[in-house]
């Protein structure tokens, strides 16, 4: 049976092998080329849509054929926001790391910005961007991108800054003594050293971005075509089939991104690890191997990347020679910085004065309302944290202590967690309202849905990190039951638990904006809380109240972080850290 087949294929093989190898389009190249074409088509389509007129009541199609398009739009927003975040993070981190004067206020600012619940700005940003580009779809699209950007940029910037700060001294000295120029430092030391941190933070940021994106796409009058609005439309119509398809698409997109973006990037970033000895298990990626085998990619590197690199090398080598000769000339740069600083200070001053004017215009009842709302949401957030911890600690420890259980449960939990809570909100809300629970109870369910994963994963990691010899010591000395929890498990997972709770708390405040107030099937459902106030103020176009509630919310969250979580974190770091 096999013989004729071989004969039949032989001529074909001949033809292939006769051609000069470089010009043969191998399978990887063909795929890459097609991908390029597809990308180009996508850009044209998107441009047509975004530059087109704004549709206030955009009709969301629930057909199966619309799903890939919607997924594409969602992906595009995420990608744009991510590129923006990466650029901003690199510049911000670089300036903060190398300009001590700027560092003094840039890092505390980063800290505050990181803890402000981004979703509280959703209404404000969307209104502003729509106003900035009247009658164009571009405005709301940019609003969504901007919002996702604000949600994901800070930890990336901080990661880059921290990496730059921790480059080993001798490595820096080697660069100085061998006269590395600015470009060479960036390319051969700073970026490589920061890569691992940036990759992990990027993954976290993008996961968070889905959460914000879903909220953006579902937001009131400014609905955007995307997976979020598709799911919302499906829930609005009680269309179970569409809900199911939407969620499956969502999960598929996330899994594909993981396989085609993150895994290859992680495998690639392996070479930037600062390890002295090669580790035994190295992450691998088929996609990365595929790219590395592609002749087209190799050719591109040889013909385009390397000559360009060589040009840069010579340009910057000459530059640094010139600079060495004329050490002066920094005066203009210094003045530029001063002007930038003065303008920034002026803008901040103006904004503060405006805000104070607006706030003084509010009535006493407004402030009372804000106070009540804050308190209600504060209670709700903390109740959620307690509930979340109550179920995740025992479950997480059980999974962490039992490798076989972990192997089954971990991937399941990861998939469940990868679905952004905001995506399923319309669905959950539908169920809750059918059950007649109302949003007072429902919002807690929603909060829990959005935040419990952070705690669960950290508890699992913590339980796994407890050294076996400590567990054995505990059993040798007959420590079991409650004593075992008190002496071994709880102290062991404490640092991880605190990390999880901090992240969960940040997430819960964010979720509260969308969980306390909802449009569904033409009705408005809401409960007492600051999140509901913010959403209601937007609907009523009461901008003063919107501003005041947003500021109050941010202030409370930042204060709680400072007073409670920061301290717990320090305690965890100093006393409960298991050092090897």
């Amino acid at each position, binding site marked *: 049976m096999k013989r004729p087949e071989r004969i039949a294929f032989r001529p074909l093989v001949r033809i292939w092998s006769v051609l000069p190898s470089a010009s043969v389009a191998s399978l990887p190249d063909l795929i890459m080329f097609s991908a390029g074409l597809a990308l180009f088509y996508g850009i044209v389509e998107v441009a047509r849509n975004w530059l087109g007129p704004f549709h206030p009541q955009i009709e969301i199609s629930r057909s199966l054929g619309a799903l890939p398009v919607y997924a594409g739009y969602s992906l595009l927003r995420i990608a744009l926001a991510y590129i923006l975040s990466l650029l901003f993070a690199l510049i911000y981190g670089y300036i903060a790391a190398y300009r001590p004067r700027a560092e003094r206020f840039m890092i505390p600012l980063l800290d505050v910005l990181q803890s402000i619940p981004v979703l509280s700005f959703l209404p404000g940003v969307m209104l502003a961007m729509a106003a900035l580009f009247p009658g164009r779809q571009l405005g709301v699209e940019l609003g969504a991108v901007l919002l996702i950007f604000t949600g994901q940029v800070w930890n990336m910037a901080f990661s880059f800054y921290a990496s730059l700060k921790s480059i080993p001294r001798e490595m820096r000295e*080697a660069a100085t003594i061998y006269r590395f120029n600015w470009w060479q430092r960036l390319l051969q030391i700073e970026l490589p050293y920061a890569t691992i941190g940036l990759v992990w933070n990027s993954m976290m940021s993008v996961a968070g971005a889905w959460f914000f994106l879903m909220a953006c796409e579902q937001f009131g009058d400014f609905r955007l075509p995307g997976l979020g609005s598709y799911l919302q439309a499906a829930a609005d119509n009680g269309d179970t089939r569409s809900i199911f398809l939407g969620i499956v698409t969502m999960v598929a997109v996330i899994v594909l991104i993981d396989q085609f973006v993150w895994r290859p990037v992680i495998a690639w970033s392996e070479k930037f690890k600062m390890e002295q000895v090669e580790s035994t298990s190295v992450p691998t990626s088929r996609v990365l191997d595929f790219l590395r085998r592609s002749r087209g990619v190799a050719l591109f590197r040889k013909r385009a990347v390397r000559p360009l690199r060589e040009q840069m090398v010579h340009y910057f080598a000459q530059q640094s020679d010139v600079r060495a000769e004329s050490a002066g000339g920094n005066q203009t740069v210094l003045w530029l910085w001063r002007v930038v600083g003065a303008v920034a200070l002026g803008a901040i001053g103006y904004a503060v004065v405006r805000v104070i004017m607006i706030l003084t215009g509010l009535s006493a009842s407004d402030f009372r309302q804000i106070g009540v709302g804050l308190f209600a949401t504060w209670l709700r957030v903390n109740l959620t944290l307690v509930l979340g911890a109550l179920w995740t600690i025992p479950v997480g420890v059980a999974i962490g202590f039992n490798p076989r259980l972990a192997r089954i449960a971990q991937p399941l939990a990861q998939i469940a967690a990868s679905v952004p809570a905001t995506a399923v909100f319309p669905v959950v809300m539908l169920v809750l309202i059918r059950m007649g629970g109302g949003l007072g109870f429902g919002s807690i369910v929603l909060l829990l849905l959005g935040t419990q994963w952070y705690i669960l994963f950290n508890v699992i990691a913590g339980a796994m990190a407890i050294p076996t010899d400590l567990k054995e010591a505990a059993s040798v000395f007959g420590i079991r039951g409650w004593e075992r929890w008190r002496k071994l498990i709880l102290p062991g997972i404490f640092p991880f638990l605190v990390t999880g709770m901090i992240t969960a708390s940040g997430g819960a405040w964010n979720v509260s904006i969308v969980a306390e107030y909802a449009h569904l099937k033409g009705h408005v459902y809401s409960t007492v809380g600051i999140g509901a106030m913010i959403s209601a103020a937007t609907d009523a176009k009461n901008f003063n109240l919107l501003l005041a509630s947003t500021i109050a919310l941010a202030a409370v969250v930042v204060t709680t972080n400072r007073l409670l979580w920061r301290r717990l974190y320090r305690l965890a770091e100093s006393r409960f850290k298991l050092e090897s």
Partner: protein
Amino acid sequence: MTDPVISVTEPIIRAHAVEKFYDQPDGNRIEVIAPIDLNVEPGKIITLLGPSGCGKSTLLRILTGLSQPSSGEVLWHGQPLTSQNAGVAIVFQSFALFPWLTVLDNVEAPLEARGVPAMERHKRALRILDTVGLDGFESAYPKELSGGMKQRVGFARALVVEPEVLFMDEPFSALDVLTAENLRNELLELWLGKKMPTQSIFIVTHNIEEAVLLADRVIVLARNPAWVRADFSIELTHPRDRKSPRFVELVDYIYKIMTQPQLALAAPEAGAAAQKPVRQKYQMIPHARVGGIAGLLELLQDRGGKEYLHRLAEVLIMDAEDLLPIIEASVLLGFATLKDGDVQITAEGTRFAEADILTRKILFRQAALNHVVILQQIDSVLHAKTDHSISQEFFYDILDEHFSQDEVERQFETAMNWGRYAEIFDFDRESHRLILAEPVGEPHPPTSPVQP
């Protein structure tokens, strides 16, 4: 890059009265390096020896232009030294290779910085890799190499820029004994065979034998602040025999200089470097742990109460860096004396070595309170205060006036180790307070933990 007609007497680098100090906020000044004159002449291997934390690495960084002296000047062929004009390279203790670059890329990087075209870069790098014996490892990443191979890459990267002066900052101390010895010999081979385009090698080390093995000239630094205690030439021919009487004599001689601050410098060709009078300073505790002191005393007791310093180093397989603080601490506490390179145990030391765990604590407490100023101060303050406790800031404030930031940390660490062992005080890490401990001699359970 190298100037072929350099007169033998003209130094390449001339450091004149370089000094390093840090201004404290309270107007005080912590001096790390006292004014030092130092020349680097061509044709020599110079080693800079000194105890840990004495400022020898700082001095190296000043001589290379990496760091600026607080006062004084460094001249490179008579011109002020900058990091751009210095024809120097450094081999680092930690190798400081870039793990994400291949061996070849690591070696090419300095040439890239100088704008050398790709082809020539490649050729020069390959030639150097060949010289240091890294043929066939061009495309390996540093993490695939052993420590010795990594340091060879470090050599290659340094030599590829054809430095006039090759600086080495403890180049062999991160390697195991055999690898280090092998690499030292290969360095000597390259140097003696004139296979490297280098006029002079300047090695910072704390290993006395290494210095005697390699150097044409040895400079010994004293610490707090750093000043040149001795500066002499070694005329032994290469290869040098570690067992030869002259070698042993020189090693012994350097041990003596390093352990006796008041030793008159009768060294051959003792350098003309400015000698600072010994100033009245706050007492500095040597960084030794109680366990180390106890171990040393037991060993001395075993060996009849008296031993040569370099013999001790041999028996314990420790280099001067680790051994000297322990000996200094024993001397400070009155457990041992030091004379002409001999360590002699005292009557107190003998009692300590023979005592059981609890008695040792009592003996140590007495010795500490008799000899260690900072512990005396803490003890009296804790007794004077009604709540018998004091913040660690108090301690830092005292030390801040006399030591640099890093040294304050180390002094504090050591004083904590001693004071807690002696049960002079207890230290609460959470409130950062020292608390008066209950007096020694209270019955303790036999399992009471002893600080190692």
